[in-house]
């Protein structure tokens, strides 16, 4: 007989194993779905997860796709670790892109080494400003940051719509909703000729290193951890909760804003209505799949990035509907949450020996 028993302490091994289990279960379930849809499961999985990254170009596209996911997820992990539920990274990304895009447009047709740093900084500040709204409302007015940050996503998209349709639209663009193309000085340099991977990847890697240092080597990281476990304990210990809430939101917003900068000054090169295919939301899956650990987030961002690429390849070569990519992302999160059950409970075999 099998009995379910509560663990005395959440298992640390299981904590890092469950993401792998979740990915494995997603692959199995994905294979079953492909089979039901009438596709050869192994062939489909091959086109989904191997073919897209089989060559140099494909691999560079994977890194390009993973960069914003990783950057945002790192930022979100500051919030999530300390029990702050920032769901609005997509809005912070959008607002960061708006501010940095505005600065880039100011420097239209100008050259200079100083332009790019200013554009990048503007994006980070834009993201921080936008993230400060739910943070301030939470600390001083006790509002629910989940709702506020989520609703602000839609506000940011409307602001972007307004700008690209109206005042910032390309004067030579027949009123189509897009701005001018940024000048080369306002664009992130490409790392290799012929590939789209750009210097933004270093921002993501820097965020990984810095976050690791903060989480595990600083007093702030410790405070965040304690607040994450128990807000009451944190209060009892005398931590300045309000300051921390605002700080983690600012960090998170800056990261999301930088992700927006990477998109518009990287592969897109202008502002238009659709600068992000919901990276801000997908990064939530990435953060949890990576267990809010910087290294875990790197791997998680690669895994989730490949679901985007794989969906395209599978449709081109096997006519599998592209939306299966989103099904895979959903399944990963679902299986991860489901297998978290194993963190707190274990199966005990009660044999008939006794």
């Amino acid at each position, binding site marked *: 007989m099998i009995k379910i028993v509560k663990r005395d302490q959440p298992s640390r091994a299981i904590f890092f194993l469950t993401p792998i289990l979740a990915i494995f279960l997603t692959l199995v379930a994905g294979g079953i779905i492909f089979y039901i849809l009438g596709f050869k499961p192994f062939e489909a999985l091959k086109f989904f997860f191997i073919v897209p990254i089989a060559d140099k170009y494909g691999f560079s596209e994977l890194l390009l796709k993973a960069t914003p996911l990783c950057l945002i997820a790192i930022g979100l992990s500051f919030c999530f670790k300390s029990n702050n539920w920032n769901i609005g990274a997509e809005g912070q990304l959008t607002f960061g892109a708006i501010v940095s895009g505005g600065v880039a447009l100011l420097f239209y047709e100008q050259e200079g080494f100083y332009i790019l740093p200013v554009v990048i900084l503007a994006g980070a500040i834009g993201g921080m400003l936008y993230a400060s709204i739910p943070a301030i409302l939470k600390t001083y007015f006790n509002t629910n940051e989940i709702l506020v940050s989520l609703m602000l996503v839609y506000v940011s998209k409307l602001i972007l719509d307004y700008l690209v349709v109206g005042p910032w639209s390309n004067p030579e663009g027949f009123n189509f909703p897009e701005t001018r193309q940024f000048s080369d000085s306002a664009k992130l340099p490409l790392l290799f000729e012929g590939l789209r991977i750009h210097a933004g990847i270093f921002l993501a890697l820097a965020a990984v290193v810095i976050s690791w240092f903060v989480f595990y080597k600083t007093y702030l990281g410790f405070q965040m951890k304690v607040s994450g476990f128990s807000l009451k304990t944190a209060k009892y210990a005398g931590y300045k909760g309000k300051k921390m809430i605002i700080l983690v939101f600012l960090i998170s917003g800056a990261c999301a804003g930088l992700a927006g900068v990477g998109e518009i000054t990287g592969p*897109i090169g202008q502002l238009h209505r659709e600068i992000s295919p919901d990276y801000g939301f997908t990064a939530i899956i990435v953060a949890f799949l990576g267990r809010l650990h910087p290294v875990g987030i790197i791997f998680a961002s690669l895994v989730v990035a490949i679901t985007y690429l794989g969906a395209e390849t599978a449709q081109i070569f096997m006519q599998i509907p592209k939306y299966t990519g989103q099904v895979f992302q959903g399944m990963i999160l679902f299986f991860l949450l489901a297998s978290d059950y194993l963190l707190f409970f274990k199966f005990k075999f009660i044999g008939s020996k006794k």
Partner: protein
Amino acid sequence: MHKFFIRSFVSSLVLLFTFTVAAIAKDVKAAFVYIGPTGDHGWTYQHDVGRKAVEAAGFKTTYVEGVPESADAERVLRQLANSGHDVIFTTSFGYMNPTNKVAKEFPNVKFEHATGYKREHPNVSTYAARFYEGRTILGTIAGTMTKSNVIGYVASFPIPEVIRGINSFTLAAQKVNPNIKTKIVWAFTWYDPGKEAEAAKALIDQGADVIAQHTDSTAIVQIAEKAGVYAFGQASDMDKFAPKAVLTSVENNWGPYYVDRVKAVANGTWNQKDTWHGIGDGMVVISDLDSQMPADLRSKVKKLQADLASGKVHSFTGPIYDQKGNLMVAEGKTADDGMLAGMMTYVKGVEGDIPK
């Protein structure tokens, strides 16, 4: 003997034809990039109907649906160009810059971009439809059928394409009924059933008894059906979604153009061009006219359709005045394509301002 000769001649012709078709089919592969799902019953759905026509003509096709206009579009295009496709149709405005960028890298692949204006490389063509001609028909019907003299119009984005449609619609409605007013609600989306339904409800609440739309979902005609007002289908024949409300639809018919262009690639006669076809070339099709419309209106519409097709009637024939009463097109003149392409002012009779 004679019969046998003819028979073998005919059958060898058939065989030859089959082989030629097979040879072409083997050679040329066309790809389509869609902004939405193929099942949207609007914009993407109609492009996919066009793709199926290309398949029926004996060519292999591939499509990728739901491709966002973000950085992803470029990758999809490059992958299609890299995997043996000879001609790629990119069916949304936002693919304009990625299309031109990838076209530069693949000079041997032909690119066809819908609704854009940039043809930066010799292997990029653009194409669009004169939907405003269809809206002239809708305006004529709306102006005749309305009792409240208030006509609602759900618009997507304030770009020339949409403004042109509103103007063409209003001018036609005024021609049959000088007292009508066109009320606009901007949905700021091409496809969002929820938002479109809200917009339609708001217009009906303001007294509109005919609703036109320049968004793609079937939500508006369904709301109209419930409220007992008239509506028009957009992009595809939406009659089956609201049989009582839908008087007719303006269908986007891309098939003939697509087949033509893919054949041109196969024959080696493809050349760069900017195509803007209307009712005359069959790119804009008017669905069956509903029997609720009086017989004389139906015959009037049929005649108008024929005149628009032959060029006898132009949707923008002067005198046309803007909202402030300034002359836009003089008496006896018609608006040229340049003016139509950049049209950003409402004509007299449209209520409200263009959002800026």
